[in-house]
C-alpha cells in the first residue's frame, strides 16, 4: 500500500462507514466516538473487515488497543503508525 496521509485514511474509513450505515458521508464525524454515530456490533465488525482488506492489516495481530477503536481519527492514526 502506498503511504497515505492520516486525512486520506480518515476519509476512506468515513466513506465506508457511511456506506455500511446507509447514511450521508456528512453525518460521519471523525472525532466522535463510534457509538455516538450509531455504530453497532455488526457495522463495527464490517468496518474492521474493511480496514483489514483495504490496509492489508491483521488487526488482532497488531498492538492496536481498545482505545484506538473509539474514533475514526484514532483508528486512522493507529493505522498510519502501523503502516510506517
Amino acid at each position: 500500500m502506498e503511504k497515505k496521509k492520516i486525512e486520506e485514511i480518515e476519509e476512506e474509513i468515513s466513506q465506508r462507514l457511511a456506506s455500511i450505515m446507509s447514511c450521508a458521508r456528512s453525518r460521519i464525524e471523525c472525532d466522535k466516538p463510534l457509538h455516538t454515530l450509531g455504530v453497532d456490533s455488526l457495522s463495527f465488525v464490517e468496518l474492521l473487515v474493511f480496514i483489514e482488506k483495504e490496509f492489508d492489516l491483521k488487526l488482532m495481530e497488531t498492538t492496536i488497543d481498545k482505545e484506538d477503536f473509539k474514533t475514526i481519527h484514532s483508528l486512522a492514526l493507529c493505522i498510519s503508525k502501523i503502516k510506517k
Partner: protein
Amino acid sequence: MKRYLSGIDWVINTLDYLGRRRSGVGNISQIVLELLGRPEEKDLRKRLDNCLKAIPALSGYPKRAVNLCPYWKVSGRSYPLALNVYNLDNDSGFTEALSIFRDQLDKPFRNKREHLVFNLIYCRDKTYFGMVFDHRLIDARGAEAFLSMLAQEPQELSPLNSLEEPSNLNRWLDKFRSGRKINRVFLHLTAGKPRVLTLRQNSSNSRLSVFAFSAQESRVIADNSYKSAGYLMLMPYLLAKSIVCLHSIFEQRKILPADYLIPVSVDSRASDLVKQEPFFNHLSFFLFRIKTEEAHDFAVVLDKIRKQMYEQVKIGLPEAIKEASFLIRIAPLPLVDFFMRVMTKGETASFAFSFLGESVFAPDTFLGAKVCNLLHLPRIPLPPGLGIFFNQYQGRLNATLSSVKGLLSESEVKQVDEYLKGLA
C-alpha cells in the same frame, strides 16, 4: 398500489405462516411505552385514526403479481382501529399490565387486513401503551420509528419511502452466487439437529418476564462488556451470557448433547433511515453454533461468537442472505416452510436472540405524558419456543425472556430471571 416484498420479507411471511399453522397466531410482537401520566383516550383514538387513514399500507395484505413476485397490496380502504383500554386500580402495577400484554400476544388478528392492535393500560399515575404488530408489515426497529411518528402531530407525518421497492427481478447471477455461498455455510452450521428444549405440557400460549435495568446497572453491564468483549461488542457479550445461562437449564434437564444453534437478526441501518423507512423488513441474520461441551465457559463462548461473527461478516453472509432470499419468493409459503424444515431438520434453533441497540424512538413525551421506558415483548412460537431479547432506551438496558408456556418450569424461569438480573 403495490409494494413488492423483498426476500427477507418473504422469509418473515414464512415464519408467520409457520406460526399460524402451529399455534393459530402469526409472527407478531408487541412494543410497549411506559408513560408517567395519563394521556386522554379520545386524543389517542383520534391520533391513531388519523395515522391509519394517512397510511393505507397498514391495512394491506400480501398477494402475488403476474410476474410471480409477491407484493403487499396497498388499498385505500383502512380498517377500523383496534384499541383496548384497561384501568388497573390495584397495587399489582406492571405485573398485571404484563399479563394483559401477554394475553394480547396470543390473540390472532381479526382478519387479513388487520396488522396492529393497540392496548392502553391506565395504572394509577402511570400508563402503559402497547402496540401488537405484525412482523410482515413492520420489524422491531421499524415499530420504534412508527411509534415516533405516532408521537408527532398528524401533519408532521413524513412521506414514506418504504412503499417504493422495485421487484428485484434482475441480477439473477448475483442472487444464485449468494445462494451458493449461504448454502455452503448453512450446510456446515446446520449439520446435525441443534439442542432444543422439549415442551412439558401441550400449550401454545406465551410466557413473558421483563427486566428493566437502571441507568447505573446498564452502565455496569456496558463496562463489563467493554472489559471482556471489547468496544461495541455488547451484542456478542449478551449473547454469550444468554448461552451460558440457558446451557445450565439444558444440562439440568439432561437434554441430549448437541450443538446450540442461535440465529440472530441484525439491522445496521442508521436511525434516520429507519425513520424514513419504518415499514417491512430490513434485517439479515447471523447464525452461531456453539458446542455443548464449551457452553459452560463464558470466555470460550464469547471468543467463538466473536470469531464466527467476524468470519460471517468477512464472507458477506448477512448481505448474501438478503440477496439469496430473493430466490425463494417464487415459492408459495407452504413450500418454503417445507424446505426450511428439511434444511433445519424440523428444529430451527436452540433459542432466539436479538439485541436491538439504542432505540430509534426519540420523543420525550407521548400525548403529553413523559416516556419512562420502551420495551419489546416478542411472541416466540415453537420451534424454538424460547428467546432472550435485549433493547436499549436512552442508555438503559431491558431484557425480555419470552417462551411458550410450559417449555420452562417455574423454577427454571426463576433461574433465568435471577441470572439476567445478576448481569448487573
